[in-house]
């Protein structure tokens, strides 16, 4: 007799094994490392400290993370569907939610490795190249600190996990590799550019004024991420700056996209 956790673990372990075997993960890891180190060194951030490094990285990471998340997740369920696996799994005591959770968790481990390992290495690089003032922990505004960099890495990982959930939902909706690629590209464009296009449209249409701009930004994953980085990493280091986006709205937004996407993926898998 197996428990729900046993079945989750079986799916999870297979995903991790599959991701370790595929070269894509190692290529992505190398690409993220080269790009983040290259951008940071070109901007001179590591010499200046953690916050200058985050300033250098923010724009490129905002594009790189969704791209990596979609690369890891766009075929996660579509390939299995194309193989006819859902019909076979339907004869097993494996619920769609357990299956989706196992696939998601397995891919999430790979994605976190792709994102966190290069950023952690860059953090070590900053620690060894920046001045001594960067090594203190920030207890008040105006101080650079490794803690701020850890927050940046954590928020970046959060954006990756949310985007991976969106990629998984789109993968569940696809029934072929070609359709998975198409949906993945549409999803990537939405996550990367959806915030800015929506905000511009809302401003242009008079749907939102300047006072509500932060809230609208926080409604989309990349806007919520950028807002949280400004709010809890960059502005901490600068006196008197805050209120870029409401933190609670940004966190609820990310939770909504994460849980909503995984629910949609579960419904698609169950619907087949």
């Amino acid at each position: 007799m197996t428990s729900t956790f046993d079945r989750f673990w079986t799916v999870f372990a297979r995903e991790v094994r599959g991701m370790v075997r595929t070269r894509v993960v190692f290529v992505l890891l190398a690409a993220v490392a080269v790009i983040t180190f290259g951008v940071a060194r070109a901007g001179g951030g590591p010499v200046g400290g953690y916050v200058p490094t985050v300033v250098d990285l923010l724009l490129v990471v905002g594009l790189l993370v969704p791209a990596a998340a979609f690369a890891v997740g766009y075929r996660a369920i579509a390939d299995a569907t194309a193989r006819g696996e859902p019909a076979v799994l339907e004869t097993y005591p494996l619920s769609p939610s357990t299956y989706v959770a196992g696939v998601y968790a397995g891919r999430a481990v790979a994605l976190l490795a792709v994102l966190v390992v290069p950023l952690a290495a860059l953090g070590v690089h900053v620690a060894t190249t920046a001045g001594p003032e960067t090594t203190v922990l920030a207890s008040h505004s105006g101080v650079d600190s490794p803690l701020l960099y850890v927050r940046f890495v954590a928020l970046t990982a959060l954006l990756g996990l949310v985007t991976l959930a969106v990629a998984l939902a789109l993968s569940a909706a696809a029934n072929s590799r070609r359709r998975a690629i198409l949906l993945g590209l549409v999803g990537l464009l939405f996550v990367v550019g959806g915030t800015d296009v929506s905000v511009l449209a809302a401003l242009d249409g008079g749907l939102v004024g300047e006072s509500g701009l932060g809230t609208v930004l926080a409604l989309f994953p990349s806007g919520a991420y950028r807002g949280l980085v400004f709010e809890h990493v960059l502005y901490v280091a600068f006196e008197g700056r805050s209120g870029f986006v409401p933190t609670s709205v940004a966190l609820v937004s990310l939770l909504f996209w994460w849980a909503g996407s995984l629910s949609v993926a579960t419904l698609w898998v169950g619907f087949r």
Partner: protein
Amino acid sequence: MSDAALSATDVSRTYGDVTALDSVSLTVPADSVTALIGPNGSGKTTLLEVLLGIEPAEGGTVDYADSDALRQVGYLPQRPTFRPGDTVRETAAFYADLVGDDPNRLLARVGLDEVPDRSVEGLSGGMTRLLGIAQALAGDPPVLALDEPASGLDPAMSERIFDVIDSLAAEGRAVLLSSHALALVERTADQVVVIEGGSVAATGSPAELRERTGGPLHETFTDLLADPAAVVAGGGDGS
């Protein structure tokens, strides 16, 4: 034949204007092999999928006999495909672990225990089918549904597949399969259900069907389809 492991009554299924199944009734006894035969597109695969619950029935009922098994039915799809990069043992272990079974037992049961480390991409069509049967056996379900288990295989491998199927039924399972390999069906099946146009044209043992038309099953099959109404009137009501 023993008690019914699976029975369907007046099962129907349509896709838009196309009637895939029209009030199909059949009984699948335990300890036996029941074969669905019929032309391409006659509804055999749809019937299997409805019986498995993969496709919803729009009318009628499907009943499985009470069982303590964790898995009521094992399924071999028409073209089993496994996760690329995995070995034979890893594939068997994935399905076995979902139901707390032993992958070595499953592989030994179908004769693949000699090649546990071979990649699934390196398997022949017949070995892939055997791995599919091993998957279907995970959790020891009382009913096995096998969709075209020997299609596209050479005669020797087809025979080997049907030998395995025969032995699985002999162990007490109800095996329901669809096939165009009529000679092997005639040799192996205890009951044959002829499907045409989404309906049951005839039901009986190979010997009973042969008696009605006087020839081997492939001739019987053609005769039954040429005049199904006469055969059904002769007692093959499909229920």
